[in-house]
């Protein structure tokens, strides 16, 4: 009956029916599209969820492996460090290639900043590992009879290392050395902005190291976020302050300690130098530290120069001459300056120069093209311009002139604490004032960047330039928990240690805490009267 009724209605109201059919069809299409969309979203969510579940499983397996105690063995640590050494020795050409692809680095620069420095650090760790791993006896006062105490280094557990794109090999491996030496299991997330280096590490690390305890996980912000949701025993991050804040806030949820290696505007004070030799050397070192370390894209690279007004013309002239000898007439063809990492950063740097007042302060540059920016010198750009407010992280070098070189101290103090401070001076009293009146991660006199190579110095920032320090023994410490251990014998217990309390016992405690051994004896022999207390 119903079947029959339908055509009748259909005939009667044909137009409507057609309209409705169209509507239904459209509704159906829409629904289908929505369905598809929902399907895609669900699929996406499912995939994401699945990835998260996989990640959790993977990390659980790594924790299990850590619990087995393998990573704690000195032999495991040594084998991994040797593996890293072998990786660097056997793949040098490939490392040169990936660094060329990602950043246009010259092999000499690549070797100096990323391969050589890392090999040196690994050798240092191998030479000192035994000493670092051993417990340290703690001194005790005589009151602590028959007690021994020691500080025992123990690994933290499963740690996460997030590295940056500017020294994508060096800044990935340097923290790993510390994490391995301290006996942790670890995940490395290299920066996705240096893709060739990232995939090189993801490919080679499992081939040379124990992949049960050491993993590389590649990816961008989404993967980074997923990793940060997990519970780690330490997060070691190298990068910008903005992301550093996110990392630390995520770590707070799990009470995870963090090391944040950030940057900042590192100033170079150039005092008036009377000897022409000194000036020349100073300028060479400044230019080397600015343009030949990843084209200024280095956290300890020189950001700007502070100089006395009367000295600056000499300085600028010399800089121009030296730039020519270092990089030739056409710096681009010398292949001695790295390129800007990507278009985004290229535009950011160009934007810094867009301010007409800043543009007017340029004294040396050439045309920039593609993602290559020529070494550019500026004199006295406005202090409130972006170039003097943000970390430059590129081959632009502002020179700020001051009346007196001593004014540089106030200039630096009124800004966020930098990762490094450089000063070229022979004036002892200025040096002293710089050390005691300014604050920075490190201070280097008459040179730049070399602090990165010293295994005996802590490398790290303060304030906005970071939290924590590493390199050499400090890397080991950063990934170690120093466990306090005290051993007691059952033999000696002062009877006055336990309640019920009385004045006599109180008096004995007074002597003990003041290490007044004679007083203890006198009170025990009842030759000294206890001080009365009101409570009892």
């Amino acid at each position, binding site marked *: 009956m119903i079947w029959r009724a339908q055509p009748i209605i259909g005939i009667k109201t044909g137009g409507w029916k057609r309209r409705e059919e169209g509507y239904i069809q459209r509704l159906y299409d829409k629904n289908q599209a929505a369905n598809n969309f929902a399907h895609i979203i669900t699929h996406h969510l499912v995939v994401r969820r699945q990835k998260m579940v996989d990640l959790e499983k993977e990390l659980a397996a790594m924790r299990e492996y850590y619990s087995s*105690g393998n990573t704690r063995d000195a032999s495991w640590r040594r084998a991994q460090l040797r593996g890293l050494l072998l990786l660097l020795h056997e793949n040098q050409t490939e490392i040169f290639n990936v660094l060329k692809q990602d950043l246009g680095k*010259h092999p*000499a620069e690549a070797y*100096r900043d990323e391969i050589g*420095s890392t090999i*040196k650090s690994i050798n240092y760790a191998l030479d000192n590992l035994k000493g670092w791993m051993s417990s340290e006896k*703690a001194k*005790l006062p005589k009151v*602590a009879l028959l*007690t021994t*105490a020691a500080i025992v280094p123990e690994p933290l557990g499963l740690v996460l290392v997030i590295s940056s794109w500017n020294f994508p090999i060096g800044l990935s491996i340097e923290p790993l050395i510390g994490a391995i030496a301290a006996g942790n299991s670890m995940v490395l997330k290299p920066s996705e902005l240096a893709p060739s280096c990232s995939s090189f590490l993801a490919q080679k690390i499992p081939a040379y190291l124990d992949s049960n305890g050491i993993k590389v996980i590649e990816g961008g912000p989404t993967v980074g976020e997923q990793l940060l949701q997990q519970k780690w025993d330490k997060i070691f991050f190298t990068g910008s302050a903005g992301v550093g*804040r996110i990392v*630390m806030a995520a*770590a*707070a949820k799990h*009470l995870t*300690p963090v090391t944040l290696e950030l940057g900042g505007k590192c100033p170079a004070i150039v005092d008036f130098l009377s000897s022409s*030799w000194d000036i020349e050397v*100073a300028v060479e070192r400044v230019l*080397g530290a600015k343009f*030949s370390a990843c084209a200024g894209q280095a956290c300890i690279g020189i950001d700007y120069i502070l100089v006395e007004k009367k000295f600056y013309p000499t300085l600028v002239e010399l800089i121009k001459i030296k730039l020519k000898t270092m990089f030739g007439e056409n710096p681009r063809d010398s*292949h001695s*300056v790295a390129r800007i990492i990507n278009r985004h950063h290229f535009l950011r740097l160009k934007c810094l120069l867009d301010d007409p007042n800043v543009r007017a302060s340029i004294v040396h540059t050439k045309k920039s093209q593609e993602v290559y920016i020529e070494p550019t010198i500026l004199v006295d750009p406005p202090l409130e311009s972006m170039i003097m407010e943000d970390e430059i992280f590129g081959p632009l070098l502002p020179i700020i002139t001051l009346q007196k070189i001593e004014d540089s101290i106030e200039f630096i*103090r009124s800004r966020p604490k930098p990762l490094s401070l450089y000063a070229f001076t022979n004036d002892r009293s200025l*040096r002293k004032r710089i*050390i005691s009146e300014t*604050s*920075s*991660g*490190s*201070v*280097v*006199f*008459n*040179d730049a960047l*070399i602090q990165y*190579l*010293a295994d*005996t110095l802590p490398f790290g920032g*303060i304030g906005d330039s970071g*939290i*924590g*320090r590493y390199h050499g023994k400090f890397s080991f410490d950063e990934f170690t*928990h*120093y*466990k306090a251990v*005290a051993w*007691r*014998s*059952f033999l000696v217990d002062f009877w006055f*240690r*336990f*309640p019920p*309390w009385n004045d006599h*016992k*109180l008096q004995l405690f*007074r002597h003990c*805490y003041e290490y007044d051994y004679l007083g203890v004896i006198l009170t025990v022999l009842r030759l000294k009267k206890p001080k009365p*207390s009101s*409570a009892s």
Partner: protein
Amino acid sequence: MGGEKEETSSKPAFDVGAASELVGKLRGAFASGKTRSYQWRESQLKGLLKMTEEHEQEIADALHSDLAKPELESYIYEAAMLKNSCRLALKELKRWMVPEKAKTSLTTFPSSAEIVPEPLGVVLIISAWNYPYLLSLDPVVGAIAAGNALVLKPSEIAPATSSLLAKLMGEYLDTSCIRVVEGAVPETTALLEQKWDKIFYTGNGKIGRIIMAAAAKHLTPVALELGGKSPVVVDSGIDLKVSCRRIIAGKWGCNNGQACISPDYVITTREHAPKVVDALKQELEKFYGKNPLESKDLSRIVNSNHFFRLSKLLDDDKVSGKVVHGGEKDQSKLRIAPTLLLDVPRDALIMQEEIFGPLLPILTVDKIEDSFDVINSGMKPLAAYLFTNNKKLREEFVMSVSAGGLVVNDTTVHLAILSLPFGGVGESGIGAYHGKFSFDAFSHKKAVVYRGFMGDAAIRYPPYTKMKLRLLKALITGNFFAIIRAIFGLSKD
């Protein structure tokens, strides 16, 4: 508490504006460089010492009012420990302040280098109510020794000590650089919105997370001194009487179990457990008499919130039949007797959170070695204790149990050893202090390198050549012969 409220309402509220003004003033004082001098640090430490010596009785009275703390406990754990910290800092300060020479290598030759300790700036110390005097001032000793300006926020849950600290510190210390802000959540929130150069917090993990998240906004480093369930493993074949005395001293003799390093639970073997219980019972009676609710040698529970929290742990169905000693409560006096619970199931409420009170559950295992798995399956505690004569067990304990600190054959004594770092790991905290470690916790280790203008190798700078690469390889790895080979062009690669 009522009087406290009236007082705060008459004063203008300490809000974000007031907090930022305070920090601004302190930043100005710090910038003047005053706090950096040895003389200032010395005078402030002497001030703290003098303040503690001259007001010992008032301190004991305040602690008695807040916690009914026995005077001797106040003396040992609060006044005397603080005085010791001050004395050690005064004795060692000059040495701590001296820059440390660092060796330099062939790679950076010729140069010299040192590590210079410098103050962090203006720091915030937030302390706890259980040892309200010591835990407020012990970090202050470190902050002063390192040359910082600081704000101390004592706990509002120990109001008498909080107001005593505010009064005394105003009299004895330099108020242009050292300030006390009293208050509860609103005041703390206002303080946490400011930018500090370090936040040092003592308390629980929940607030610790809030502190660290607030610190993250300003990239402020934190030290978090938290707690956790600190276990005591009791092996057989030991001097049980001495062991139980030492457990009691660490548990009930430390603020009636309201201490971050107090033993939280005992693990022993099934057959040894009755002996442990008997010995504990016996010694408890010797110490605190037949009616411990009346004992003057036990602190009370700090407030009714905590009293109810502890009562709830005891009322849990899973443990109600497990009490083998004690269990008496007096709500009007906020007192709970030392209580032993035997064979508590591990999923009971009392085994899920830090007890922080006079209840001591005893877990049993088949073999004593199994106890390490029990400990390692939970969060990392602030302390772990083991009583044994077995050398192998002792070694395994030190190797496999992770905790802030370990003590073999005693409890809590590591706290008093100033040559040991005191602090947690994992859930029990971040960072360590005491003695030199306190100085370090509030210092920045600045690396300083000195170079002359001589001895520069052209190879460091562009234009780069093959020869430069070869020399660099040799130089950076510090291989002397390779350097010579490279210079003379004898290198193979």
